[in-house]
């Protein structure tokens, strides 16, 4: 049994079929890249995975806690980095000491230390991304879902974030990353390519080359 199993899932918005009969699995410790143009159905699929919306058909089974990072970062701009981490840690029901310990680990892993007391709204965008990432992993989720984490970042910040992601996958976490940068496919173990709601390719990046260039 894989941590994430999606069987023929469909979602319609009125006459638009946003996700059309999609099936895929994510293995333990695997990084699955979800690729496609804007409007291909990536975000809808992710929101169903996070049970933010219900599918119209099909089954989704998720075995474990989910960490989620969305396009809009979901940070509270007036709170400092430390307070943001504290806040979300508390919402996940973690003890104060556990949150403090996790914060220490994460901030040394992501090199966030110099920014801990800075308000989120004053962070450079690359660091905002790092904070958003740390909030997604604060409760040591078994499954990590990143919705276009690199969109809008410069290439250096993108590379930095991907290093975080690949390093974090070694802890055995299953990771789903959606992106519309085709070159990022090569950071992933497998890629799933979506177009107009349908899954048109699924496999190792090298096997999907015809779609990637």
């Amino acid at each position, binding site marked *: 049994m894989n941590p994430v199993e999606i069987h023929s899932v469909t979602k319609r918005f009125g006459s638009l079929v946003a996700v059309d009969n999609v099936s895929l699995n994510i293995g333990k410790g695997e990084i699955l890249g979800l690729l496609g143009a804007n409007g291909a159905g990536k975000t809808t699929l992710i929101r169903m995975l996070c049970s933010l*919306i219900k599918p119209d058909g099909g089954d989704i089974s998720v075995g474990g806690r989910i960490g989620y990072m969305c*396009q809009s970062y*979901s940070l509270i701009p007036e709170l400092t980095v430390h307070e943001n981490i504290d806040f*979300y840690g508390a919402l996940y*029901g973690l003890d104060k000491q556990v949150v403090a310990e996790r914060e220490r680990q994460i901030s040394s892993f992501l090199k966030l230390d110099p920014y801990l007391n800075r308000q989120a709204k004053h962070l450079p965008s690359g660091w905002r991304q790092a904070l958003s990432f740390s*909030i997604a992993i604060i409760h040591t989720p078994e499954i990590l879902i990143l919705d276009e984490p690199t969109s809008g970042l410069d290439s250096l910040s993108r590379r930095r974030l991907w290093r975080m992601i690949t390093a974090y996958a070694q802890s055995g976490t299953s990771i789903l990353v959606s992106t519309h940068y085709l070159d990022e496919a090569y950071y992933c173990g497998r890629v799933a390519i979506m177009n107009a709601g349908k899954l048109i390719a699924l496999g190792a990046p090298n096997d999907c080359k015809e779609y990637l260039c």
Partner: protein
Amino acid sequence: MLKKGLLTSVIVKEVRHIFRDPVSCLLLFLMPALILILFGYALSFEVHHMNIAVMNPSHNVEAERLFTKIDANPKINVTQRIESVDQMDAAFAKHNTRAVVVYDDGIDIFVDGTSPTLIAYAESLLTNIISDFWAEEYHTDALNTDVKTPQVRFLYNPSLKKEYMPVPGLVLMIFILVSSIVLGTSINKEKDHGTFKLMRMTPLTNLQIIAGKSIPYFIISIFHVLVVYAVCVYFGIAIKGSLALFFCLCILYALCCMSLGLLIASLCDKPLEVLILCWIVLFIPNVFLSGFIFSVDSLGFPLKQIVSALPGTAFIDAFRGIAYKGTGFIETVGPFVILITETVLAFFISLIGFRRTLPK
């Protein structure tokens, strides 16, 4: 030199911009229309139906003729007859009575001194009717000794202290600002930042998120209630009725404003939309129509009935009653029922609205 074509392009762009943006259209057309309608048509500044009570302890026949004449005036309804001065307070508390005319050895007019627009109007209207009456009775012989000149007295605010007038209206505005507008926009800011989405991924429920967000605003509202009380004390405005009832009323009104703010937030997506909607549907009607600036009596059917159901009207009525006239819970039960009903209804509708606009 500015090229003509360049300027035209900007103008054309701006016109398209305006007509394709619902928020701009709302501000540019609906808001002025609303203000014009309110000021031009609805608030003709003239009192249409003023309810008064009369008292004739000596059963004088001349007095009955005067009362018939007063009742015949289209702007006044004699709705109550009282037998003694002791019943006057009860008369003012009921039927929206604004004045009492007493015909005994002399003529005394008691006017409710807490409604700012009404005072001068009630005074001049009633004294005019009475002097017309004497003119008819004695054929303009103004020197006749039987002519009784009315004495006008202002109840509940005998010295017509001006501080009395704006207090309830100011409280009304403060709570719409703090409890409706700021709470509503702050909720939609979270929607904007995507923090709501992430909070929904945690074990929190929508109800917990909304409660957690609302409680700090509720505490700030209580702080403002205390400030209002301090202001009353500072200006020498004593709360005549029960202090507990006064605080209950203010807190209930704050809760009502919060519920309405939540309701508006649940129907919109952007903080700016909440702000504008709060102005149009809460601030303008409640401030201009609640009897704070213009008397509710100046409104005709059906506006008067609609306006009576506004939370602001209920609040101002009950505030003037409890604080200035010393009325108890029984006499102010109407406004309390209106406020409680609106609070509960708005809250439950907002929960339904949030289920739609917040990710489930």
